[in-house]
């Protein structure tokens, strides 16, 4: 063992041999190469923008000259912070939106959790009727923009406050709806809760389905009563899911723009998201950046508090609503009443809003809901100077059709890039398990989760308004919409990618390696086909999200990259309710059609039937 030619030992670090070794080593591990590339890309599009707005928030900008003549552009300043936190304007700019956002966030989260978990319990653990239909309908809000309810609310309750027409209720009864019902806090909370319950429902029913009812039965054999079983066994097991549902809902509410804009702005009810939008429109980007930073800090502290309370750090369950039937308790005489309650609920949250929008889109003179006033003009009209500023109906409207093309393109491209990125991140994280690189990558892929949508949008204005090295200025381009959509959805798709990769046993790839099959062929012949079912589900989710998103991109759209949600918001701002209703309906129909087609296609292609062990 101790002869001089022993093969042991390492060459000095700077020797040719060691360099060759390090290069070989790097080359032999595709997961490291991919990991480094992904990490670099994600740092550039996530961390750099964040640092950029921090810097901009502390820098004197040219538009600040309006407030401070002697300021030096580019110098360090606390001006923006002073305005937001200290000056008299702070009350309108910061304090009120903060209170409104928190009030809104807590109330919506509370209601959504209550409604979502009640529905989850009914669907998973009881013998309520029509589970199949309900299951499909309950997730419908997921496929609609969050502000569809708000539009429907306006159709129903609009009063004469903002001028123009009045809603259905006033038409039918002649009673003027009071402001607090038509606009502001109450309707915002209600309409948001009636949308976001779908998220809490999915998360909690998924978790509930995995809680083995045998655990509860074991509790029963120990002599625990029904309520005690729920309190001591079921609830603790559900806590991580409940916790992540709370965090998810709360952060989404903080970042949501459409509903507070539609229902809040007419009565000057500002939340953080609408205040950021207003500041940007008033060309006070500095204020908007500071507000966006506050929003991010709020989100982070909320996550932190939640993880402290729940005590499980990595409990953010992904949205896979995979349910398998468990022991159901018999509702007895309450079976039909419960079923009818769910039907009424679905009518209120899914069917009625869509019907209201349909009706609205068919009225010739706004506010007149009589049958004689029905028209298909806003769908098929050629354009008439006397109606709606001469805007043609949906199918002849170049602006709408162009935006439709953009929306679909955005959905597909975001889904494609997101799927690819999710797969690569999943590959690098799972294959590189245990290494620092994998942990960093997992962390940074999760980071966009903590940015409320509107704040991420604000960050991207700051970042891509000028060119950075070889990357051109992206503001106003279609590319930036794709980029921000991909990044915002990355936490979910990378989870999907990681989960899909974990299901593919390492030996399936290793055996191909040993047989001399190179990396690209391994990816295309083995890894991608085996992870397809998970990837398709993740990509469909991205597609849906991209099509219906407004909060994320409201700050980034311009006539050059207009998408459907932007068009709808524009019509609504101009009080063109028929157009906005028609386009919204079209958007929802397209989303539903495409997701049904994708589901059918992937089922007939046999994706998901394979057991990858």
């Amino acid at each position: 063992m101790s002869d001089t030619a022993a093969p042991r030992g390492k060459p000095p670090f700077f020797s040719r041999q060691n360099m060759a070794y390090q290069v070989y080593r790097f080359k032999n591990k595709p997961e490291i190469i991919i990991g480094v590339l992904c990490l670099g890309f994600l740092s550039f599009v996530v961390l750099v923008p964040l640092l950029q707005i921090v810097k901009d928030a502390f820098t004197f900008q040219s538009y600040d000259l309006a407030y401070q003549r002697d300021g030096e552009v580019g110098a360090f300043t606390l001006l923006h912070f002073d305005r937001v936190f200290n000056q008299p304007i702070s009350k309108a700019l910061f304090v009120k939106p903060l209170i409104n956002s928190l009030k809104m966030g807590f109330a919506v989260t509370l209601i959504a959790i209550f409604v979502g978990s009640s529905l989850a319990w009914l669907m998973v653990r009881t013998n309520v009727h029509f589970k199949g239909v309900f299951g499909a309908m309950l997730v419908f809000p997921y496929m609609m923009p969050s502000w569809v309810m708000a539009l429907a609310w306006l159709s129903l309750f609009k009063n004469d406050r903002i001028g123009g027409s009045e809603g259905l209720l006033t038409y039918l009864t002649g009673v003027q709806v009071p402001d607090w019902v038509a606009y502001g806090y109450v309707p915002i909370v209600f309409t948001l809760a009636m949308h976001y319950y779908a998220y809490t429902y999915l998360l909690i029913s998924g978790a509930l389905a995995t809680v083995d009812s045998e655990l509860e039965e074991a509790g029963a054999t120990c002599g625990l009563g029904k309520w005690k079983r729920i309190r001591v066994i079921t609830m603790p097991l559900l806590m991580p899911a409940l916790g992540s549902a709370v965090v998810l809902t709360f952060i989404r509410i903080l970042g949501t723009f459409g509903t507070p804009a539609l229902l809040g702005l007419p009565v000057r009810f500002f939340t953080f998201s609408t205040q950021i939008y207003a500041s940007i429109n008033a060309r006070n980007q500095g204020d908007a950046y500071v507000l966006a930073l506050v929003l991010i800090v709020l989100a982070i502290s909320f996550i932190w508090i939640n993880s402290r309370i729940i005590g499980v750090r990595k409990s953010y369950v992904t949205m896979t609503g995979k349910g398998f039937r468990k022991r159901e308790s018999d509702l007895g005489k309450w079976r039909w009443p419960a079923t009818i309650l769910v039907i009424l609920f679905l009518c209120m949250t899914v069917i009625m809003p869509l019907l209201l929008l349909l009706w609205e889109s068919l009225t010739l003179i706004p506010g007149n809901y009589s049958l004689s006033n029905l028209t298909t003009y806003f769908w098929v009209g050629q354009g008439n100077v006397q109606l709606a500023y001469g805007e043609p109906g949906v199918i002849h409207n170049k602006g709408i059709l162009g935006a439709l093309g953009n929306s679909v393109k955005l959905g597909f491209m975001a889904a494609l890039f997101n799927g690819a990125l999710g797969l690569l991140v999943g590959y690098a994280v799972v294959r590189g398990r245990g290494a620092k690189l994998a942990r960093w990558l997992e962390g940074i892929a999760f980071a966009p989760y903590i940015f409320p949508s509107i704040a991420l949008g604000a960050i991207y204005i700051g970042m891509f308004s000028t060119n950075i090295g070889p990357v051109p200025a992206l503001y106003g381009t279609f590319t930036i919409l794709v980029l921000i959509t991909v990044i915002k959805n990355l936490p979910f798709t990378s989870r999907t990618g990681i989960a899909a990769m974990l299901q593919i046993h390492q030996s399936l790839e290793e055996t191909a390696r040993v047989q001399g099959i190179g990396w690209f062929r391994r990816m295309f012949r083995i890894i991608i086909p085996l992870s397809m079912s998970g990837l398709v589900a993740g990509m469909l989710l991205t597609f849906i999200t991209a099509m219906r998103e407004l909060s994320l991109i409201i700050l980034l759209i311009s006539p050059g990259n207009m998408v459907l949600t932007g068009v709808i918001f524009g019509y609504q701002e101009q009080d063109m309710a028929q157009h906005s209703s028609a386009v919204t309906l079209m958007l929802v129909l397209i989303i539903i059609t495409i997701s049904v087609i994708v589901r059918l296609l992937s089922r007939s292609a046999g994706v998901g039937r394979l057991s990858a062990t």
Partner: protein
Amino acid sequence: MKQINLSGIVKSYGKEVVVKNLDLTVKPGEFLTILGPSGCGKTTTLRMIAGLEEPDEGLIELGERTVFSRKEGIILPPEMRGLGLIFQSYALWPHMTVAKNITLALKEQRLSKADIAARLANALKLVQLEGYAKRYPSELSGGQQQRVAVARLIALRPSFLLMDEPLSNLDAKLRTEMRASLKRLHRDLEATTVYVTHDQIEALTLSDRIIIMNEGRIMQEGTPFEIYHHPANLFVAEFIGDPGINLFTGTVQGDVLDCGDVSIPLPEALAKRGGKLVAAIRPEKLLVLNTAKSGWQEVKTEILQPTGADTILQVKAGETSMTLLQSGFITLPEGTSLWVSFDPESLSFFDPDSQENLRGELG
């Protein structure tokens, strides 16, 4: 020359060293088994040969080629090593038919279509799976899946064959059958083979040579006969053999080893050595009579386990337990007296401190 050579291999995960300065040579065409308890470093060693793990230090040569040398700065990736590897899980690709599973790697080598078809047909024939080409792995039984994994290697014709516990997922009956088919694979390919297992029966029945590993070190290497009959140390003695070897610790008293309830005859060289010793004898080597005989040790039966052809007898001499293995289906009432004798030819002696076999000192 299709020799596998490992020298000075060190491998650690973090602070835990799992392979400690390993030297190992597998001769051309040899069937070598690495046997050891789980966590002994055997699978890591195999994966290092395949290139799926990187040693920290050392040298690995496959035939004429150096595939790893930390000193020279060489690492060849697994795809360039030209090996065949069978995994415990078989690692069949679930989304491909049997035929595709077998031919994927052949296509990568850009063989002609006719050649690929011929190799596929031949491989399926050798493992008796003709007619299964279009099936998916999930439509096959465990044994058939295993045979597909074997066929995949037959078609690939590697010069080096690595197997990582390929039988551990099969039920006992199938195992005997598959042992034979693995042995045939080795013979047909004439490949230099490294087989990793924790199952001593597989090791003893399949191998030309066995290496016993524990805690990252080689405890003994030798033919199955040598390993079984002349364990180099107490670890090997206890690890090999089922039922396990009988061990008696005692002090040299004259020309016998006094172990309290039993005394064991000592060879002259060890009698002179004096001090403490451990004597070992395999259950089937203990001579047994059912009538008293002078100089024989009386024992009482405690628990009998007839396995069909043989019976395992747990007996006691006073407070000292020992195990006997006799052929035939034996039933005796508990507490029946038997008389045993320690055949000097079958006894091994170990130093209780160094744990080493003292065979060398017998001259």
